[in-house]
């Protein structure tokens, strides 16, 4: 009960998307009904023509009939053109609206949502699930109605012409419908298995490709091929059995309708002999049976379309209905330029009611200060800095910037004032220039170059074939890890933000570059409040405030000297990790001794 209730709600909501284009929707329905009627008329006309030719065969009568057939077909052609175009239009426009809605929604949902979702999964909702809805619109709703009209129209024409023969023909109908429904269920579950098995095959493939170096390092090529072969052959087997099932079903359907024609001939022939049916009507019956075959065979398919639409609609609405806690409060204020005072007031955050990721974090930073955050993997370093631009919503406590609770500030103006260099550098498929100017509309080239110079990227860009107009990302040149990092830094520098956050951003930059970046940064951090997830002693030492995190709590805080005296976590980390670096910073990788989370 609840199930069907929910299903019909989803369907109603989907139909609502089609309803937005009322004119086309109605147009499609009307022309569909009209074209269905014209199609049914043609066998009748043919029947009349047959009788006419048998009885008198007057040329002018035949010509009239022939012309009538052409005329009706033209009408039918016109209606069917309008109907297919309009229904395509309704379904494409609904898909267009849905895609826009999904895109807009996804851009706004907080990190908490995206952390739990995989890109592939979201993509499939925006592509194949929307395709399913598209099918549902054109084939399910509009064609579905036409099927019903066709079925009842043809049946009543048959009944009016000769009810005895009609009843005998229609006996087949329930059997066929029953089988079609049964089959569609069976086929659905078989195809589902195919999907699952294909998923397994994809996993093997993806792991193989991403882990190719390991595979090669262990000479695992044959082994992998065997693993893949097993999965691929399972996919083939299952697909084969699904197709076989479909083959047996569809050929059986053909058989049933061929037999029905046989019955029409056998019984109808007797009716003709007994003068209860004319030759023409017999011919018309046979053609009608052909028309009837279509809607009935489509029933199973129609049901599949609807079931798929329910599942897909659910997946789509899951995104559209996702509530993001991170949104502008009514009356949120715009901030233009801030000084950079940041205060964490007993801040905690828990995901999905699990144990808190961050607990009672408290600190206060004066404008222009440098804060270094230390801690092992999973201690919550990134989470702390991600709270400042409100990528996540705090569960309790509050964060204040210049004395305003960040929740009272519009998200847009808040983030405009905060520059963050993220751990995962993302390069968009665009030119280097557009990638650097990502956060600023129409940034002049000089500004881009200045930012690029600060990030020590300029020389690399100069060596690219088309300089700043070189295309990067997919279908373009591949940037090295260090270049990507510097690109991300340049991107942030261009924003010239009062608050700067470096989320482990120099982890894959080599020593030389990092040295330069450090130099650049030390001038860049002047006059800004800066948060650094630190891994270099030089940075940590300079910091006005060091926060040592463990399991989401601030376990120690203070300056370098303060903390060394405490003989605690910091002192141990210093001995184990920071000091050896100082003695031997042999490679850039030493510097990245923070975990990539």
């Amino acid at each position, binding site marked *: 009960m609840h199930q069907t209730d929910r299903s019909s709600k989803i369907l109603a909501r989907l139909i609502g998307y089609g309803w937005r284009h009322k004119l086309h929707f109605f147009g499609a329905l009307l022309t569909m009904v009209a074209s269905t009627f014209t199609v049914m008329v043609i066998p009748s006309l043919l029947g009349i023509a047959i009788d006419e030719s048998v009885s008198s065969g007057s040329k002018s009568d035949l010509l009239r009939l022939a012309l009538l*057939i052409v005329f009706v077909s033209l009408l039918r052609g016109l209606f069917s053109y309008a109907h297919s*175009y309009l229904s395509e239009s309704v379904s494409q426009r609904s898909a267009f609206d849905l895609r826009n809605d999904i895109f807009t929604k996804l851009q706004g949902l907080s990190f908490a949502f995206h952390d739990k979702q995989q890109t592939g999964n979201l993509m499939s909702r925006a592509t194949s699930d929307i395709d399913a809805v598209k099918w549902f619109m054109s084939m399910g709703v509009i064609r579905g109605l036409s099927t019903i009209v066709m079925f009842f129209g043809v049946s009543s024409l048959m009944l009016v012409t000769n009810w005895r023969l009609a009843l005998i023909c229609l006996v087949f109908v329930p059997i066929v419908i029953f089988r079609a429904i049964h089959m569609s269920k069976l086929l659905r579950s078989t195809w589902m298995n195919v999907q699952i098995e294909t998923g397994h095959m994809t996993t093997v493939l993806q792991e193989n490709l991403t882990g190719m170096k390991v595979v090669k390092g262990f000479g695992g090529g044959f082994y*992998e091929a065997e693993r893949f072969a097993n999965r691929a052959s399972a996919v083939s087997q299952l697909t084969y059995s699904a197709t076989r099932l479909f083959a047996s079903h569809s050929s059986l359907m053909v058989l049933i309708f061929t037999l029905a024609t046989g019955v029409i001939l056998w019984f109808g022939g007797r009716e003709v*002999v007994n003068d209860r049916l004319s030759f023409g009507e017999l011919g018309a019956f046979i053609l009608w049976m052909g028309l009837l075959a279509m809607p009935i065979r489509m029933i199973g398919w129609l049901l599949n379309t609807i079931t798929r639409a329910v599942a897909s609609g659910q997946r789509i609405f899951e995104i559209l209905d996702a509530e993001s806690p991170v949104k502008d409060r009514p009356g949120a204020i715009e901030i233009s330029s801030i000084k950079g005072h940041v205060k964490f007031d007993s801040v905690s955050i828990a995901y999905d009611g699990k144990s808190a990721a961050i607990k009672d974090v408290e600190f206060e930073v004066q404008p222009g200060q440098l804060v270094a955050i230390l801690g092992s993997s999973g201690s919550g370093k990134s989470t702390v800095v991600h709270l400042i631009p409100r990528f996540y919503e705090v569960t309790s406590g509050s964060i204040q910037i210049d004395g305003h609770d960040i929740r009272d500030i519009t998200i847009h103006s808040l983030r405009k004032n905060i520059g963050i260099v993220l751990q995962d550098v993302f390069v968009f498929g665009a030119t280097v220039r557009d990638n650097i100017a990502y956060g600023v509309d129409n940034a002049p080239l000089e500004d881009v170059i200045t930012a690029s110079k600060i990030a020590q990227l300029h020389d690399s860009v100069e060596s690219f074939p088309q300089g700043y107009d070189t295309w990067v990302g997919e279908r373009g040149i591949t940037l090295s890890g260090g270049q990507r990092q510097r690109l991300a830094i340049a991107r942030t520098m261009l924003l010239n933000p009062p608050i700067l956050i470096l989320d482990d951003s120099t982890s894959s930059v080599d020593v030389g570059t990092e040295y330069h970046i450090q130099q650049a940064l030390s001038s860049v951090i002047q006059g800004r409040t800066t948060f650094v997830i630190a891994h270099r002693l030089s940075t940590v030492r300079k910091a006005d405030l060091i926060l040592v995190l463990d399991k989401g709590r601030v376990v120690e805080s203070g300056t370098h000297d303060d903390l060394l005296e405490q003989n605690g976590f910091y002192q141990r980390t210093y001995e184990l990790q920071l000091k050896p670096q100082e003695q031997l910073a042999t490679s850039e990788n030493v510097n990245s001794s923070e*975990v990539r989370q």
Partner: protein
Amino acid sequence: MISGGMGGMRQWGRSGLDSEQEGDRIYDHEVIVRLMQYVKPYWPKVLITFITILAYTGTIMAIPWFVQMIIGDYISNQDLSTPEILSGLDRLVAVYVVIAVIQYITNYTHLRIMAFVSQQILYSLRFDLFKHLQRMSMSFYDRNEVGSVMSRIQNDVQQLQEFVSIVIVTFGDILALAGIVGVMLYMDVGLALITLSVVPLLFVTLIIWQKFARQAFVRVRKTVASVNSGLQENISGVRVVQSMSREQTNIRRFGRANYDSLDANLQAGRFSAALIPSVEVLTALSLALVVYFGGIMVETPSDVGVLVAFALFIQRFFDPVRNLTMQYGQLQRAMVSGSRIFQLLDIKPDIRSKEGASKLVDFSGNVRFEGVGFHYRSGSEVLTDVNLNIDAGETVALVGPTGAGKTTIVSLMMRLYDATDGRILFDGKDIRDVDLESVSDFVSFVPQEPFLFSSSIEDNIRYNRKDIQRDQVVRAAELVGAHDFISNLDTGYDTHVSERGVNLSLGQRQLICFARALVAKPKVLILDEATANIDTPTEILIQRGLNELLRGRTAVIIAHRLSTIRSSDRIIVIDNGTIVETGKHEYLVDKGGLYSKLSNYS
């Protein structure tokens, strides 16, 4: 992905595989010929399919004919008495039923065999692609994104699946067309010719239509691709988008791309919508011709049968034409996919075993670099004149800045690439003269970022060495210090490692990789030391595991930890693609070269 030092290994330039290939042909000779190679092994089955399709087509022809006979020879035959008509009717309907059953059997048989053959072909294609990918050298993977390689095996092969069935159905359709024409001519030459007079018109319509439709469908494909890449990019880059407050701009841009796609789809929709009514009007035209001329010709009621049969034939006649045009876009896509698949299969792996290469046997672990140089493009050398002798059992630490060439040195030892100058010798044997597969029997590798496969922990440790028993797996885990945490898991060694090992901590995954390397009993161990900051207890565990791993074998470590560097037998300092210093820690510090400079820098 595996090492932080890949910077030096990446080369730029466009990716090797065209991610988007234009194509608007629905027939590509080369693709068809190549595909036929895959069909060949199944020729007996294909033959049976053709025979059954022929039989099936025959029954399709026969049914309207029967209708004609039943109506013409019996029902409307006024020369016969009623009982004669009825018994004739019974007889003919009985034969009709038999034909219907034959039709059913042949229909089912050919569909079934064809499904089998096409699945076998797809399987072979997938498998060939996969095996081919295993042979490609690392430079291929440096140039190509995993996603675009994957889509070859997934989407492109999938496209061909539809293709095979379309080809078969089309074949049947063509047979049916020929059959229909034949039977119609046989029944009544005049009427048949009149009916078929519409066909040239049909062809003209189709040719004009496909000229316009082709472009429309190509445009749909392009705009859909740009919508999808917009989605993909802004979903995976959503964090940057939000941190830069770019949402509104992106939404606007996406809206434009999306609208373009809508527009293209609607345009194509207009073309598709136009075709079927045109075909139908032409169908009706031939029907009208049959009605008029056929009607005039009808002299006796028995001629009525011919009329009905013709009406049925006309319906059948236009069905294949309609099918073919509906599959038009699909055929285009299939041809593009086919040529993309064969393009990939045609890329020659640049590292192969030499003709008659001997297997590496009884390798002691002595590795020697003689004047080794490496570059992707001449002029930009990654390594130059590397000379190095590593004794069996020696532990060597490679040290130097990113891009110096450390990763390249170890990659050459694994023969992921071939040196462009000089040679690498294993026990004095040039590794290019050794059978490629046998190298990995002696060389094991621990990646910087621990990589686990989604299977059980036991299978991850054993990996491809199937002869290794459970107790050997456990023993290896014990030695590297992984046994304790593994046995603490609910399902122990049978625990399934989820995607990329997320249910284990970084340190634990590292230890499993150690065990995997250990179980292979390598003579040479290559280790790209993890740089990740791991909590102290795990750090100690890893240190112990490492010691166990290094014992009694040659080891080359891209080292980041002071402890590792200090305990190595020799430190090799690499800068700018060549060895600049070698020696022990204290010696190098005293020497005052690059090593000591790097050491002092903080």
